[in-house]
């Protein structure tokens, strides 16, 4: 609903950014730059952060901070990218910007060693904890077969704008971890998902809430041994970034970057089949930008 309302861009955005197309692209892909610079290009092509964040709104940014690993391991989202996104939200007039993840490794070590805590705080965001069940509220997921209820971090419920910032990674049991999979970091009871049908649960969750914007960090990607990775040799430098309002489309394009057919990834296929987003990249309005 929020996303739908935001589709209409205010006039002054067009003035500020000059040649904004009459309709914003479905997806923007940028190649060949540093993460921050690629994001600048991408968000401009999407109509600027003002298209997503209104003055006085609360914004929650969900990077992947799952692991106690340094940025070059590409186990977590690039900290520079997160910092730049925070800056754009603040510049767009956000009242508060929150950054968090329900980490796998010890949360404070992940926040610090990923470099994300510093990058986000330096730009004016608040890093909020997510390591206790008391932060989570039970929500019911409408119209699904498996994941009828799950516990979601309260900050998602309390925020106006939800920005999903995954990193593109290999994943040992779901093939890939990108945008949809990244949403597992806003829920508490992940063990239940694993126990009862991981791919189905991941797809079902989109029936509860789709992020308003998904920004995929594909600057340095984890090609094998994901999602944690064993060493820097698991990574490859791809220097790409994908941005879309449609998390399924963002995952589809990112899977292609990885070299995997999106329909081969079960939760992406299920999510598209249930109508949570599009897989037909060839029919989309995609802007491709090289730097």
């Amino acid at each position: 609903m929020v996303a739908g309302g935001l589709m209409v861009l205010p006039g002054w955005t067009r003035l500020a950014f000059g040649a904004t197309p009459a309709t914003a692209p479905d997806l923007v892909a940028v190649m060949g730059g540093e993460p921050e610079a690629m994001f600048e290009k991408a968000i401009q092509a999407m109509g600027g952060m003002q298209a997503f964040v209104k003055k006085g709104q609360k914004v929650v940014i969900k990077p992947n901070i799952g692991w106690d690993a340094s940025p070059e391991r590409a186990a977590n989202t690039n900290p520079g990218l997160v910092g730049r996104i925070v800056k754009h939200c603040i510049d767009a007039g956000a009242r508060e910007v929150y950054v968090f993840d329900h980490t796998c490794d010890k949360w404070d070590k992940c926040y610090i060693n990923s470099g994300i805590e510093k990058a986000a705080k330096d730009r004016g965001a608040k890093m909020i904890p997510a390591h206790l069940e008391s932060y989570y509220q039970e929500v019911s997921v409408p119209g699904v077969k498996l994941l009828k209820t799950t516990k979601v971090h309260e900050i998602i419920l309390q925020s106006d704008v939800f920005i999903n910032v995954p990193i593109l990674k290999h994943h040992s049991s779901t093939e890939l971890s990108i945008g949809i999979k990244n949403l597992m970091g806003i829920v508490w009871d992940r063990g239940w998902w694993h126990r009862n049908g991981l791919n189905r649960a991941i797809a079902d969750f989109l029936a509860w809430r789709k992020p308003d914007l998904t920004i995929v960090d594909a600057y340095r990607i984890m090609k094998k041994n994901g999602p944690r990775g064993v060493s820097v040799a698991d990574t490859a430098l791809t220097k790409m970034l994908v941005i879309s309002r449609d998390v399924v489309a963002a995952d589809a394009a990112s899977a292609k970057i990885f070299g995997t057919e999106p329909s081969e990834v079960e939760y992406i296929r299920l999510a598209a089949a249930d109508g949570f987003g599009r897989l037909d990249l060839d029919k989309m309005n995609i802007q491709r930008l090289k730097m």
Partner: protein
Amino acid sequence: MRRHPGKWKVLRVIVSGLALLWIGALFLDIHNRIPEAWYLPLRYFQIVPAMQLMLAAGGGALLAFSILMLSAALFGRYYCSFLCPLGAMQDIMGFFRRKWTHRKRYKMMPLNRGWRYGSLLLFVFLILIGSGAAIGLMDPYSHAGRIVSQLAVNPAILFNNIIAWMLESQRLYAVPPVPAARFQVAPFLLATTLFALLWVLVWRNGRIYCNTFCPVGAGLGILASRSLFRIRFDQEACTACGLCAADCKAGCIDFRQKTIDASRCVMCMNCLTSCKEGGIRYTLGRKQRTRAFSGERRQVMKMLGIAPVLPLAAPLSAPGPGERSCAISPPGSGSHAHLHRLCTACQLCVQACPSHVLQPSFLAYGLKGAFQPVLDPDAGYCNFDCVRCTEVCPTGALQPVTIDEKHRLQLGKAKFLFDYCVVTQEYKNCGACSEHCPTKAVNMVPWKGKLYIPEVNESLCVGCGACEHACPTDPLSIYVEGQEVHGLADLPESRKEEQVETPVLEEFPF
């Protein structure tokens, strides 16, 4: 009636207060923020840790232990009132005894030689057979550690969390809340029992624990009985008013005979404050015979012959599916045997462990390792890049380990139980175990159709317990089997490779 406390008593209160605060802070570091260097002094001013470290490593600890012993022979049992955390706790109890009751006076106590030297002999025997767990059950520092761990950590966490929640309601996140420490029945009962016992003993007879049950007190007492500096009567100035004896927590002053049993004097310095006549002083002064020692020595010799033998039981019951038959001992312990010999179960590593995978054991190792730390993957898993426990251990039970060594340190090996796995039983992908594995010793391999099942490469496994912690099935379908002696895991292939730095894509693939 109120007198100004003398300089010695002021010094004692300040030093022991600082020592207790210091040690307490280490055990209550719920955010794991205290730097490693703050843990180091423990090894040098706590007697039993210094002794254990000396037995483990010699070197600096040997020097530290020698200085502690020599200084006791020179200056008396200053450890008991200045440095011992259990002593400081008893002094706090004694403070409340004075505040809350009308019973202000202490009585002179007869020395219970049987208990006192029996406990010392038992202690020496335990050192000889190398039972760290049993030594720890007699060590005042380890007792204090267990009391703080079991009785003060959760209240501290609650206090922290109340502040955290108040701040968070204002959208301030400077103080994060901390999950409560696990309740462990046996360590809790042990600590509670001793704590309650100390209150009773202090209420009745002051520091009687230190002169009856504590082997450190007994050992230092022998050294201190003829110490160069000690508290002495000035035979001329003393009017035999008895004020000093009434304030003596150790009950070791015979004011009528004008003698002090220096072997029992814990050097609280109260008597120096209570004497108005200058009749009692801490001096190098004149030789004064204590009658105690020669007789005691004979008794000690007699008892050596009847040193008791402790039964050291092995683990009790046979393991079920997903239950390890061999406990996982902490990094740096090297082997169960090393841990059992040196660890006094003070719980410092348990408190310092950021992931809380370290928990006090009860029977996981059998009685010979009672209360010593054990990895419990149900509570957490050992962080791949963390060696915190090895940095804080004061006894040498956990030897220093570098991060690089830790990456290959094999504490145990993962075992996969095919018949309980989500994938094999329900034909649904899971992979939680493999996700968390830091070396990919647990890897997902194609099974049927698009299903992947875990495959364990034991030579890569470090036994951190991440797979077991993440496994969602009950009973567990993957668990870590500990090993008596730690091993060396192979280096994963990808850690031998170089990072590729050339971009892999020229064109958009869509």
